[in-house]
């Protein structure tokens, strides 16, 4: 029932990764799939770390160590990625000392950091400390011809005032994945207007990558694997030839495609979530159930190889297992080509 630990060590992982990149570079061009640049070598790559859920080090050293391991992983990449993207939920209860610990560990990264906020970072002081440390949560930037947008997709309607909750009660409520008192996540009208304006100048063919903490679609409302105004956000993205959305929050391998939008989840460093009970998108190849006896199984970090057209190869660097790449050809072909390896154990 438990996953056999893979004997892959760090060195052979890098060898294998390098081989995978090399193989991608020399793979035959498949006509009619994906983008104008077809399956050539990626234009650049960045690394990701996400969902560390830090308490103070004295309360819980495990989560801090896991983030430190991810920072080591990324720092050992050679060549270094262009930047490192942090996917949100740096803290568990949004406390200043948790965010500061996270900032301290992340400051050891050799590559530049881009960071997104998660609900665990926000609902104690409504983002006050996070903003001081990292700046505004909604922003965009351009890198090597690709337009990147970072959204704050965990806006919840006020459920706390009428209940007379303290800030910590509000935070603990939001921190419970299965807590039904909280509201669904949204991007909200203000950010949607901002997004529309931010994208206005881009042609439809522009390579575009959007980061959101929650999946920008509706998967499972009870756990906020969900963005309530996803349809409105998707409508803003509809005119583009292709868009990649990369999200945290779900702590698992998760792949989806809706029309022109290709979705990829991020692994967590803290713990893996189960898949939602009602099922997953058809393109998702579920990771097998993590071994409860190994606290790092199912966790990890990874890399994102960006092609000139903006589509990506998404590398899930699972600690304790072989890395899994969901190549751009997989989502581009609606799952017909470049199928990632299926795990030999059920996910439950």
């Amino acid at each position, binding site marked *: *029932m438990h996953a056999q630990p893979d004997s892959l060590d760090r060195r052979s992982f890098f060898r294998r990764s390098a081989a995978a990149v090399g193989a991608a570079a020399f793979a035959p061009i498949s006509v009619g799939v994906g983008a104008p640049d077809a399956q050539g070598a990626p234009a650049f790559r960045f690394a990701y770390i996400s969902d560390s859920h830090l308490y103070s080090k004295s309360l819980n050293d495990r989560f801090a160590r896991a983030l430190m391991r991810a920072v080591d992983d990324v720092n050992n990449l050679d060549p270094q990625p262009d930047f490192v993207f942090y996917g949100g939920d740096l803290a568990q209860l949004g406390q200043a000392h948790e965010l500061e610990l996270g900032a301290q560990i992340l400051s050891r990264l050799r590559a530049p950091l881009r960071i997104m906020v998660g609900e665990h970072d926000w609902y104690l002081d409504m983002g006050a400390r996070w903003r001081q440390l990292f700046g505004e949560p909604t922003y965009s930037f351009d890198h090597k011809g690709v337009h990147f947008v970072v959204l704050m997709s965990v806006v919840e309607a006020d459920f706390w005032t009428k209940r007379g909750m303290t800030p910590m009660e509000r935070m603990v409520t939001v921190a419970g994945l299965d807590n*039904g*008192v909280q509201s669904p996540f949204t991007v909200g009208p203000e950010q949607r207007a901002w997004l529309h304006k931010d994208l206005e100048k881009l042609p439809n063919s522009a390579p575009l990558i959007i980061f959101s903490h929650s999946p920008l679609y509706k998967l499972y409302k009870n756990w906020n694997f969900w963005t309530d105004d996803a349809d409105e956000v998707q409508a803003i993205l509809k005119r583009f030839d292709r868009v990649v959305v990369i999200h945290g929050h779900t702590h698992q391998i998760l792949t989806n495609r809706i029309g022109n939008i290709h979705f990829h989840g991020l692994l967590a460093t803290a713990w*893996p979530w189960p898949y939602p009970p009602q099922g997953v998108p058809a393109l998702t190849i579920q990771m097998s159930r993590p071994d409860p006896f190994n606290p790092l199984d199912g966790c990890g970090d990874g890399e994102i190889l960006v092609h000139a057209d903006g589509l990506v190869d998404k590398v899930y660097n699972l600690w304790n297992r072989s890395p899994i790449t969901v190549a751009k050809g997989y989502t581009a072909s609606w799952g017909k080509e470049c199928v990632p390896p299926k795990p030999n154990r059920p996910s439950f």
Partner: protein
Amino acid sequence: MSADAKRAAVIVACAIVVAVIVGCAAGLKQTQTPEAIVTDHMAQWRLRNPDRANRWVEEEKERHKLQPPADNSDILKGEQGKGHAYGGYTERDVLLWARETEKLAVEGSRIFHSADRLGGTVGVSCDMCHPDAANTHPETYPKFQPQLGRVALLRDMINWCVQHPVRGKALAPDSAEMRALEAYILAQRKGTPLNYGKH
């Protein structure tokens, strides 16, 4: 008012109170069942103490989804219990079973979602890996747990988690906490066929 007048007033007042109590008791004896009296008192207490009213079951069910216990209203149909020492149940029995059973599961939900109640020392509670008790698969126990090297029951795995990820002390198998946790986890898998030994 003189001391005598005061004494007289007190005596009169006492007599009135006694008369009222006796009168009420006599009246109640004839018209109200003990359950109704208790319910009435409880309702009055709730009215006087709106903030202190014990709503923990409702509050926990609002926070965390709970599968309801089985509906036993079928056994009230017809005359199934007639003439039997066992089986002559009333609507009250059925309601009481459901309420008490659910209460144990709800208490389990509160413990499941609280690092403190679990005796954890690192801020970790069960729901952090098992939202809605997902991925606990109690229907597969007992089974041989290779990591433990022996056959495990659900409670053995609960205790493993309490000791390791939660970093608390193992619960006594018959402790109130273990009973409630088992109740909650089993409740959440309602409808799943038993399949002991399944990996």
